[in-house]
C-alpha cells in the first residue's frame, strides 16, 4: 500500500501525520538511496558513530553500495554493543544450550523476546526482566534512573502483560565519597519518582557501596508483569498490508546517538549535534500508555506491540520486520515531532521515551484509534507490512532506507573477543584474610556485632526504600526489608510469586565463575526462604570493557558459571541484559552479574517473613559454617581487605534448603526465616530481631561443636546455603524431620523474645543499641 491507497481509511486520516513538503533545497541535500548509488565515494562519519572500519565495510557489502546517512544511523546504532550484544553473544548462547527440556517445562517464552514468560500454573503467567541504565544515571541521576524504570516496564507491556512490580538493584561508590552524594539521592528519587507515578509497587532490590563504582554507578531495574496464558503477545510484523502504528509521546531529539555513544564507548564530549544529551521521562505519559496498551490487547485490535527503547525507531522497524514477514514500508515524515528541525537520521535514532509501535490490521484500525483517543494518546500510521523482504523508509516520498531488516536487527557483527585470565588473579586469590586481626574476647565480639550492623553495606536501607511505594495495587504480600518481594497474582486463589535479586561483586572479583553462581545461589536462597519454589532466572551482567581480555575473561567465566548453575538448579535464564564498558578511565568495575530469581507460591498467605514477631519461637540454624572470610563484609568493612577464594558454592545444598523451606511454608511450620549472606549469622540475627523489635536468646555451643569453628567464625563467616529459622514450638518435631529428610543440617540456637540479642556466656546487646547502629548510617551520610 502506498501513501495514496491509505486514503481508503478516509475517516482515519487524522492518524496520518501530515507534513509540509520539502523545499527544493532540502530535497537536494537529502541523502537518498539513489544518491548513495551515484556517489559511492562520499566520506561517511562511521567512526564518529562508533563503528569500526570492517563494520562499515560489512554494511557496504550487504547493501552493495554505500549506506545513506539514515542507513548508516540505523546500522551504527543497531550494531552497537548495547543493541547487538556483539561481544557477549558467543557466550550468552550457553544460556540456551544449557537449558534442558525439563527446564523448559514452565517456559512459555524464552530468551530473545522482549522478556521471558513463565507459566506459574492455573493459567497464569509471569514475565520479568532486569535491565541496566548505568551510564545515563551517571550523567543525570534522576532522569537516568527514571527512564531506566520506564524502559524496562515497556518491555513488560509489549508482552501483553500488566506490569505489577519493580525492583532496583543499585550500586554506588563509597558512601562517604562526594560523587555518591551527587548520584545516590537523584537515582533513588528517580526510581521512586517514575515507579511510584506508574503505580508499580517497589518490592525489593539492592543498595551496595564499593569504591569500584565511583564514577560508574550501576542502576539496574527489574520489572514484573502478569498475564493469562492466552494473552501472550509477541512483537512481530506479520500480514501483508497490516499497518504499522506509532503511538505515545512525540519524537524529540533525546538521546540521539545515546545507544551507540553512551553505551558502546566511554563518553565522548559534545557529539555532533546540540541535541539534549539526556532523556527526560514522563511517567504520566507512560502510565496512560500502560492502560492504553492493556485496553488494546483486551479489545484484540493489535497483532503485536513493540516497545521503543534503545535505538528507537531503528530498532522497532527492523526488529518488527525481521521477526515477522520480513518487509516493511515506512513514511518517516509522518512521525509526530516535538522538534520540527530533526533530520531523518535523528528521528531514526531518537530515544524519546514513552513511545510504542503496534501492528494493526486495516479492519482493526478504527477500534485501535478509538482506544488511543479515549486515553488521549497520539497515534500515527507510519506504514505497512510488506512481503518485499526489504525495510524501506521514505522521507517525503524519497527512499532514504532500503535494507534487508534482518541485517540490521539480527545479523550484526559477532566478536569472539580474546580473553585471558589475568595474572593478577593469582596475587588476588593468594591474599587470604587469615591473618587479619580478629576480636580478642567476647566483649570485642559483641562490639563487632554492633559495628557490623552499621557498615554501609549492612545498615538499614530504609532511607532509600521509604521513598518507594510498596502498597499500590494491593497485592504486595511482602517487600523491603524481607528477603524476597512476594506478590499475589490471583486474588481468588492467592497464587503468587516471590522474587529476589542479588550479587556480591567482591565474590565475583575473586572468582567470576563462582561469583556468578554465588549470586544465583543467594537470590535462589532468598526466594526459597520466603517459601517460593524457584522457577526462572533473569540477569543483568555489568562488566568493564570487553576489549580488555581480562574483563572479557571475567565475563566469559561469569556467564559459564551462571549457565552451569542454572542447569544444576534446573531453572532457566529467561532473559536479561548485558552492560559493558562500565569503567572509570581504564579501571573496570568489579564484575557484577546481578541475578534475579522468581519462584512460585500456591498461596502467598503462606509465605515466610524474615523477622519474628513474637517471643517463644524455637530458633534453628540450617546449614554448615566454615571459616570462609574471603570477600566477606567483615574483611572488607573492617580491614578493607579483598583477597582469597570466595565461599564454596553448594547448589545441591541450596536446593535442599529451599525445598525444606517450601515445605515449612506450605505446612505452616515456621514463623519466620532469614537467609544468611553478607555479615553472616550475626547480621541475620540482628535483622530478624530488629524487624519487629523482638529479640532472641541464643547459645552458639552446639553449632560450634558440630562445625568445629570458633564463635567469631560462626557469627561472621559467609558460608552459603544457610538460614536462621524461627520454628513454631509445636512444629519442631515435624520441621526437624523435614530437614533430615532433605539432608539439611540443623542445629538449635535458642528462642525468640526479650528486648536484646543475648548470646549465652558471651555478650548481650540491647535492640536499642543495635538499632541505633543499624539505622544511623545512611541518614547520617545522606542527610548531611
Amino acid at each position, binding site marked *: 500500500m502506498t501513501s495514496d491507497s491509505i486514503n481508503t481509511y478516509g475517516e482515519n486520516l487524522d492518524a496520518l501525520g501530515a507534513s509540509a513538503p520539502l523545499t527544493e533545497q532540502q530535497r537536494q541535500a537529502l541523502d537518498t538511496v539513489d544518491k548513495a548509488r551515484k556517489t559511492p565515494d562520499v566520506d561517511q562519519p562511521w567512526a564518529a558513530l562508533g563503528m569500526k572500519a570492517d563494520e562499515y565495510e560489512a554494511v557496504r557489502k550487504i547493501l552493495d553500495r554505500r549506506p545513506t546517512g539514515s542507513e548508516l544511523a540505523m546500522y551504527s546504532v543497531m550494531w552497537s554493543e548495547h543493541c547487538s550484544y556483539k561481544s557477549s553473544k558467543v557466550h550468552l548462547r550457553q544460556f540456551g544450550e544449557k537449558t534442558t527440556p525439563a527446564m523448559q517445562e514452565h517456559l512459555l517464552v524464552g530468551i530473545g523476546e522482549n522478556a521471558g514468560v513463565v507459566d506459574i500454573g492455573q493459567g497464569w503467567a509471569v514475565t520479568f526482566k532486569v535491565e541496566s541504565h548505568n551510564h545515563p544515571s551517571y*550523567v*543525570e541521576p534522576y*532522569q537516568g534512573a527514571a527512564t531506566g524504570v520506564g524502559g524496562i516496564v515497556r518491555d513488560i507491556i509489549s508482552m501483553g502483560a500488566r506490569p505489577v512490580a519493580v525492583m532496583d538493584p543499585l550500586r554506588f561508590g563509597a558512601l562517604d565519597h562526594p560523587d555518591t552524594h551527587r548520584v545516590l539521592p537523584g537515582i533513588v528519587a528517580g526510581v521512586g519518582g517514575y515507579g511510584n507515578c506508574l503505580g508499580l509497587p517497589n518490592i525489593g532490590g539492592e543498595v551496595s557501596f564499593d569504591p569500584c563504582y565511583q564514577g560508574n554507578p550501576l542502576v539496574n531495574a527489574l520489572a514484573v508483569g502478569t498475564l493469562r496464558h492466552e494473552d501472550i503477545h509477541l512483537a512481530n510484523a506479520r500480514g501483508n498490508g497490516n499497518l504499522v502504528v506509532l503511538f505515545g*509521546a512525540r519524537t*524529540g*531529539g*533525546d538521546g540521539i546517538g545515546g545507544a551507540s555513544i553512551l553505551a558502546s564507548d566511554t563518553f565522548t564530549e559534545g557529539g555532533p549535534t*546540540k*541535541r*539534549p*544529551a*539526556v*532523556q*527526560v521521562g*514522563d511517567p*504520566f*505519559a507512560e502510565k496512560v500508555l500502560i492502560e492504553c496498551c492493556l485496553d488494546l490487547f483486551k479489545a484484540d485490535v493489535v497483532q503485536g506491540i513493540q516497545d521503543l527503547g534503545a535505538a528507537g525507531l531503528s530498532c522497532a522497524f527492523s526488529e518488527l520486520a525481521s521477526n515477522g514477514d520480513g518487509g516493511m514500508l515506512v513514511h518517516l515524515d509522518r512521525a509526530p515531532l*516535538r*522538534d520540527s528541525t530533526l533530520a531523518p537520521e535523528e528521528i531514526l535514532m531518537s530515544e*524519546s*521515551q514513552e513511545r510504542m509501535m503496534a501492528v494493526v490490521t486495516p479492519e482493526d484500525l478504527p477500534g485501535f484509534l478509538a482506544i488511543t483517543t479515549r486515553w*488521549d494518546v497520539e497515534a500515527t500510521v507510519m506504514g505497512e507490512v510488506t512481503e518485499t523482504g526489504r525495510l524501506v523508509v521514505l522521507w517525503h516520498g524519497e527512499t532514504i532506507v532500503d535494507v534487508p531488516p534482518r541485517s540490521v536487527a539480527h545479523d550484526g557483527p559477532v566478536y569472539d573477543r580474546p580473553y585471558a585470565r589475568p595474572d593478577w588473579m593469582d596475587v588476588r586469590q593468594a591474599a587470604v584474610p587469615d591473618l587479619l586481626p580478629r576480636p580478642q574476647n567476647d566483649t570485642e565480639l559483641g562490639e563487632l556485632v554492633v559495628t557490623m550492623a552499621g557498615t554501609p553495606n549492612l545498615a538499614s536501607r530504609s532511607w532509600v526504600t521509604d521513598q518507594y511505594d510498596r502498597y499500590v495495587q494491593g497485592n504486595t504480600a511482602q517487600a523491603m526489608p524481607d528477603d524476597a518481594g512476594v506478590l499475589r497474582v490471583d486474588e481468588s486463589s492467592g497464587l503468587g510469586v516471590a522474587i529476589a535479586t542479588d550479587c556480591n561483586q567482591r565474590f565475583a572479583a575473586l572468582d567470576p565463575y563462582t561469583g556468578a553462581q554465588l549470586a544465583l545461589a543467594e537470590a535462589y536462597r532468598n526466594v526459597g526462604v520466603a517459601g517460593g519454589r524457584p522457577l526462572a532466572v533473569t540477569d543483568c551482567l555489568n562488566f568493564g570493557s570487553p576489549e580488555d581480555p581480562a574483563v572479557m575473561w571475567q565475563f566469559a567465566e561469569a556467564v559459564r558459571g551462571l549457565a552451569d548453575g542454572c542447569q544444576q538448579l534446573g531453572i532457566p535464564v529467561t532473559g536479561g541484559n548485558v552492560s559493558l564498558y562500565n569503567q572509570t578511565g581504564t579501571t573496570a568495575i568489579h564484575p557484577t552479574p546481578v541475578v534475579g530469581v522468581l519462584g512460585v507460591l500456591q498461596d502467598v498467605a503462606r509465605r515466610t517473613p524474615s523477622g519474628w514477631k513474637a517471643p517463644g519461637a524455637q530458633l534453628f540454624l540450617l546449614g554448615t559454617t566454615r571459616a570462609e572470610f574471603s570477600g566477606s563484609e567483615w574483611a572488607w568493612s573492617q580491614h578493607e581487605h579483598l583477597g582469597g577464594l570466595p565461599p564454596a558454592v553448594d547448589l545441591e545444598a541450596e536446593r535442599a534448603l529451599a525445598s525444606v523451606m517450601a515445605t515449612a511454608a506450605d505446612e505452616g511450620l515456621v514463623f519466620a526465616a532469614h537467609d544468611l549472606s553478607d555479615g553472616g549469622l550475626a547480621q541475620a540475627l540482628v535483622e530478624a530481631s530488629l524487624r519487629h523489635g523482638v529479640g532472641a536468646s541464643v547459645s552458639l555451643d552446639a553449632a560450634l561443636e558440630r562445625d568445629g569453628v570458633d564463635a567469631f567464625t560462626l557469627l561472621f563467616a559467609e558460608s552459603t546455603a544457610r538460614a536462621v529459622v524461627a520454628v513454631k514450638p509445636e512444629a519442631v518435631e515435624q520441621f526437624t524431620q523435614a530437614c533430615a529428610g532433605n539432608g539439611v543440617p540443623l542445629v538449635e540456637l535458642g528462642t525468640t523474645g526479650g528486648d536484646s540479642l543475648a548470646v549465652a556466656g558471651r555478650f548481650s546487646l540491647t535492640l536499642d543499641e543495635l538499632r541505633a547502629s543499624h539505622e544511623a548510617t545512611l541518614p547520617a551520610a545522606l542527610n548531611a
Partner: protein
Amino acid sequence: MGRVVIDVMPKPEILDPQGKAVVGALARLGFAEFAGARQGKRFELEFEGEVDQAVLDRAREAAQTLLSNPVIEDVVAVRAASDPE
C-alpha cells in the same frame, strides 16, 4: 533587605512534561489560544543589605550550582528584585 530573583527554565530542547500538561489543561478550560507552555522555577533570595553586582554574581553562582540542573535547565535571569527582567 535586598532581594534577588532567579529564573530557571527547562532547556528548550528538553521534554517538559509539566508544560505539556499545562497546554492540555488550558485547552480544556477554553484557553486554546495558548498553544505552547513551559513551566520553570522562580526563586527569590533574600540578602541583608544592598544588592550590587557582587551579590548578583554570587547569586548566579548559586543558581548555576544548586538552583538549576545544568543538564536539563537554563538559568534565564538573575536580577535584583526591582530590576527589569
